[in-house]
């Protein structure tokens, strides 16, 4: 947790409520305060003093250098074999831990990954797009990879791994911006598997502005590209991966370089449209075909999102699909730029690298439990009928129950006035 006072209470409270034996030898929560400058340390300490299974770790003087470093600190003090990771802005349901540890019964499973669901999707256009994009990425992409015995990715949060494996590979690589992808490949290249558990759903707070999205995407893209440079040939040569795992592994490594290919494809398309096909284009028909495919074929992600929304019974959200094109444009630009940044990463200044490491989501508003406030805010501001949604509800239903009595009383009064007006009308 790096300066997370607005959400720290939320996640710690979830761990207290978790439906898992609170025996200290089996369940310990290690809350890492990564050099916070706000009230996070005192919140963490308060919980650690109340509950014996919560440990508070404070990184003093050397915090804020990124998640991999903080995780390595946590790894040193963790005493159990299965380690699960949650970011500070996450809200896991009570059965999340049981679901995530279950796949470790299989001795081949070295890591596990759950499903991430944005909690603040109604907050802005970007967060809504992130919501449906995440649905496709987890519900379809990760699940298909797992079902087909390919390479489902450990996503760095709402997931876990065996401590002994991570110790054996030297902990998290602090030079990588995508330590999760790095660990995924370390696991697979050493003969382990990652299990994906779609039912282990967990709320997260998604980015809500294009600036934040750009920063997040840049970090992910550079991190992925770092892994591409390191693991491309290792994956191809691996004696433990199957043929299709190698194919999927290479495609997964290249997922953030594809936007660059799309960009080049578009440029070539515009060039040939304006000037006519140059004589040399006939020499490289295959390349043109690849670029043309990339210009169109990558719309597969839209089908993926539509499929996941259908499965989630949120069919009305499918209407938003065309608007995802804006996100595609942003992806193309940001990931293309990030590719070159990744190549020259070692030439970046230390403060630039540190900026990339820390995402620093700017959380507006005050109060310690931001999620509850966000959701209560939506409840009051939105005028549409929640009970008309396909799944007849959403996160709000849960939070409505815990709303204050004053809110509930006001709500009842409003409803009564409306009923009376209707009768008179």
């Amino acid at each position: 947790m790096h300066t997370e006072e607005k959400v720290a209470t939320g996640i710690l409270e979830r761990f207290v409520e978790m439906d898992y034996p609170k025996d200290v030898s089996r369940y310990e929560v290690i809350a890492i305060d990564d050099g916070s400058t706000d009230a996070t340390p005192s919140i963490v300490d308060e919980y650690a003093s109340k509950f014996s299974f919560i440990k508070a770790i404070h990184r003093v003087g050397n915090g804020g250098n990124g998640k991999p470093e903080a995780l390595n600190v946590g790894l040193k003090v963790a005493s159990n074999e299965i380690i699960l990771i949650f970011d500070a802005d996450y809200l896991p349901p009570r059965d999340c831990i049981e679901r995530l540890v279950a796949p470790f019964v299989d001795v081949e499973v070295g890591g596990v990954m759950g499903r991430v669901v944005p909690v603040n999707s109604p907050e802005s256009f970007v967060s809504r797009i992130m919501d449906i994009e995440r649905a496709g990425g987890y519900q379809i992409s990760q699940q298909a990879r797992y079902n087909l015995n390919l390479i489902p990715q450990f996503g760095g949060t709402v997931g876990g791994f065996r401590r002994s494996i991570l110790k054996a590979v030297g902990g998290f690589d602090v030079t990588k911006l995508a330590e999760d992808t790095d660990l995924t490949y370390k696991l697979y290249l050493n003969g382990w598997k990652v299990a994906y558990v779609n039912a282990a759903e967990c709320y997260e707070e998604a980015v809500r502005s294009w600036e934040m999205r750009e920063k997040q995407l840049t970090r992910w893209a550079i991190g992925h590209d770092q892994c591409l440079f390191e693991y491309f040939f290792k994956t191809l040569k691996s004696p433990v991966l199957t043929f299709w795992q190698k194919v999927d592994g290479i495609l997964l490594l290249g997922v953030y370089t594809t936007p660059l290919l799309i960009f080049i494809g578009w440029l070539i398309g515009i060039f040939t449209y304006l000037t006519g096909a140059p004589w040399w284009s006939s020499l490289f028909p295959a390349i043109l075909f690849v670029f043309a495919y990339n210009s169109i074929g990558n719309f597969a992600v839209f089908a993926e999102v539509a499929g996941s929304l259908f499965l989630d019974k949120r069919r009305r959200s499918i209407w938003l699909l065309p608007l995802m094109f804006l996100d595609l444009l942003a992806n193309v630009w940001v990931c293309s730029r990030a590719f070159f940044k990744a190549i020259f990463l070692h030439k970046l200044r230390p403060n630039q690298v540190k900026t990339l490491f820390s995402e620093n989501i700017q959380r507006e508003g005050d109060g310690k439990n931001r999620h509850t406030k966000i959701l209560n805010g939506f409840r009051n501001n939105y005028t549409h009928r929640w009970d008309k949604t396909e799944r007849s509800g959403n996160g709000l239903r849960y939070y409505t129950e815990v709303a204050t009595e004053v809110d509930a009383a006001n709500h009842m009064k409003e409803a009564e006035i409306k009923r009376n007006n209707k009768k008179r009308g």
Partner: protein
Amino acid sequence: MPILGYLEVLALFVGMIVLCFFWGVWEYKKPKDPGPLFIDLDRTIKKRMRERECSVSKASVCEHSAHSRQTLMLAESGEQAQNSSLNETIRVRGDLRIPKGEVIPYNMIVEGNLVSQEDVTFQGGLHVKGRVVIGARNRLEKSIVCQKELLLSEDVIVYNCIDCEGPVFIKNGVRVGVGVEGGGIASASTIYLENAEGPLKIRSKEGICIVGALKEVITEDLKQIIEVKAP
């Protein structure tokens, strides 16, 4: 005129693009499903497992007993009344012998034979796929579903009901259905009583037999189980 044609094509093109984005903008501006996707943050695995356990025992009752309907209804109401405090089911593969005086706070599914010694308390339901020997003065706070022979020793108390595929052997002082919504004993075979004492509600497909001593009628398989010494 050609310019007009160009404009028409252009208008059509622009119109199609607008049409493409129109629905998205509509849903964004007037959302019917703005999310987030509902996750029940209070859900637990144990609760669902308990529900599944209930359905498993009901299914087995339906499958294995010709007299199950009445018993099922009795068992159902009884289990629902008491399950609120019980939230774990354990499944045992192989034979199980429960030592004297033990308290078992789980629902149990035993995929072998079950023998309990004296003064054992079962707070959950029992579903045994093999043979069952319930020791003297045992207390079963829910029901027993058994797929082979069942022996109830002296002074056993069963709060709800018993549904058995095979023969049932009942010794002196056994009481069944003492709970508020308790039921009786149903068997697809014969029920043997050591004497006719006790207010027992009994239904048996092959009849009820009152004997002087159960030793005379107990099957060899059941005798073997009883004779095995506890470790």
